[in-house]
């Protein structure tokens, strides 16, 4: 119950902020941070719970973005429909990739997910309808009242999506699915032997993960009023998702939120004050630091600290 009250507070706060006279740039930057929350939470369902490191968030994110573009150009449907279709396409891709690769062990799965990114990018490069390598300029529809700008509305949409993603992750974590995934992570062979349907569980996690990442990608074309393959399928989304989850803590749904909020905000501040390269450098360094010294993430450090008392 506490969770749902908290969720409600978050959504209300988001709406309140969007209606207040806070500087426009805050919403522009926060949208990116909220996207990172969704991506990290989605990544963690497969990566943290089941232990399968997915390097492919850009593939699912990109599929979602391009699905939204197609729906927008072809059928002129509103954002809600774009998100739904994007989630569907992301889920389908997740299912397909899972079917093809989840039987492979650790690094092969990871490399296969990198391959999916480049293949999806190449497909989009060769599809003139969505702009090919040139890209596509997009004129947003008029702003929906009561929000003063489209970016503010997207901010609220993304906040709601983040809450939804976390709810799903929480459900998976606390249910028998989560228990099964943890069994897979701890010792897949033993889990198989004791009757856990490992492949089905992994496929489920991969599909949900892909669907959420696809949904996160859907508002991006409207956010930028522009889409092109190179930046949409950029590996920096991988490091954002993976980094946030590892830094925050992979074992609990709160970890990716903490990681994404901290990392995302740090990235935005550094980009505005120093440069966008230094921000990627910082993420890389933090990732390596945590992986080496604090594998349980911030949550783990927190638990250790409380345990000592």
């Amino acid at each position: 119950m506490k969770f749902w009250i908290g969720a409600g507070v978050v959504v209300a706060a988001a709406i309140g902020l969007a209606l207040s006279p806070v500087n426009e740039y805050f919403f522009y930057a926060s949208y990116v941070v909220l996207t990172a929350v969704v991506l990290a939470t989605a990544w963690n369902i497969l990566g943290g719970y089941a232990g399968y490191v997915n390097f492919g968030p850009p593939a699912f994110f990109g599929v979602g973005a391009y699905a939204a573009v197609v729906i927008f150009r072809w059928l002129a449907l509103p954002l809600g429909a774009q998100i739904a279709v994007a989630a569907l396409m992301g889920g389908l891709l997740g299912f397909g990739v899972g079917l093809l690769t989840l039987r492979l062990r650790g690094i092969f799965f990871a490399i296969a997910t990198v391959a999916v990114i480049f293949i999806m990018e190449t497909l989009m490069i060769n599809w003139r309808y969505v702009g090919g390598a040139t890209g596509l300029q997009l004129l947003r529809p008029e702003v929906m009242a009561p929000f003063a700008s489209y970016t503010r509305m997207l901010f609220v949409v993304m906040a709601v999506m983040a809450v939804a993603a976390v709810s799903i992750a929480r459900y998976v974590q606390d249910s028998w699915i989560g228990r099964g995934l943890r069994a897979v992570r701890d010792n897949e062979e033993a889990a198989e032997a004791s009757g856990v349907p490992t492949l089905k569980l992994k496929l489920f996690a991969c599909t949900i993960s892909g669907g959420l990442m696809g949904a996160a990608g859907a508002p991006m074309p409207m956010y930028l009023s522009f889409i092109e393959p190179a930046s949409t399928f950029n590996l920096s989304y991988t490091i954002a998702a993976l980094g946030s989850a590892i830094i925050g803590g992979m074992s609990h749904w709160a970890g990716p939120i903490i990681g994404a909020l901290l990392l995302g905000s740090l990235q935005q501040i550094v980009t505005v004050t120093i440069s966008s390269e230094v921000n990627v450098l910082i993420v890389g360094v933090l990732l390596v630091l945590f992986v080496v010294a604090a594998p349980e993430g911030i949550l783990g450090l927190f638990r250790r600290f409380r345990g000592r008392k």
Partner: protein
Amino acid sequence: MRGSRRKVLKAGAALAAASALPGKAFAQAGPVKIGMSMPQTGSLGAGGQAALVALRLWVDDVNQRGGLLNRKVELIAYDDQTNPANVPGIYTKLLDVDKVDLLIAPYGTVPTAPIMPMVKQRNLLLMGNFSFQVNAKVQHDMWFNNSPWNDASSWSDGFVKAGQEAGAKSIAFLAADQEFAQNLANGARELSKKANIKSVYDQNYPPTTTDFSSLIRGIRAARPDMVFVMSYPNDSVAIIRAVNEIGVGSSVQVFGGGMVGLQFTPIMTSLGSLLNGVLNYNSYVPGMKYPGIEDFLSRYAKRATDAKVDPLGFYLPPFNYAIGQMLEQAVNATKSLEHRRLAEYLRKNEMKTVVGPIRYDKMGEWANPRVVQAQFRGVADKDTEQFRQAGKQVVIYPEEYKTGNVITPFEKARSAK
């Protein structure tokens, strides 16, 4: 981005110092901020750096004259690295964090394309900077592009005519898959069809392509009479090197047309004799007479040498200086910074600049295009100063600037003096 940050801080300090001095009559209303992103690294980097020097020269000139509306002018320029993905974020920051008063577009079509919807939807005036047809889809009514072309025909007419005069009946198109090259390619295809020239090869390549040997082989096998290339500096250099490495075949009469980057001094110097025979577009070659250009070029040269940037400054710098001049005339005439009023002025009036008089059409492009097609001849390696002489780029179109006839076929032109 680092360098510009320091420059902004320096400018701020200078402003503080200046407002403490008597004699400089700047109003206390704060500076007029002009914001832009300029590709200073990446494919367009060499050109962008030179352009920025010219813009800063204008800022200093206008501040010496008392600034705009009695307020000091401050230029805030970030580096977008020729990456279109960086541009929306930069312009959002310029508008919402730096709170600039006026906007200039980045140099080049590819970095400019992403922000066209944004400026249209936020109702902002945007001064275009050497883009090609970037407003065609969005159709923003407060867009004024400073470049010597307007549509595809203004660009390719000279090239196609040169080929026809040599009896060309077939053409090969090689175009990068990006906004500039695709815009130009679409236009060029139409024009060659109308001129009854048959397309025997037509390939797009991803902008990240670095090895062109396979594509050049394909072109050679098609035995075209003309090869129209539409490329950005990185690819232009790679294509020229590939042509010199494996050859494009004896059938080709004219080669080039739309290769960006072969006008940047550092690239011309580094390619040297590899350029010979190429017939390509340009905006200015020595010998063309625009009022005030010689004076501008000598003042620019001093600044550029200090900044260790292109000392000749033929291609972009005069046009970037002219953007500043146009803004100055519009602001002084309307006595305001309101985008709508400035746009009205720019639309209706002819403005005097170092690249001659400029008048705009309905689409925000030059009403009277002035693209030259010139052929490189007798270029030597590793010599920047040689390009100051007329004759290294022989203008073959248009008539009023013509200095010679095109030499065909391409292979012969490569060894001509």
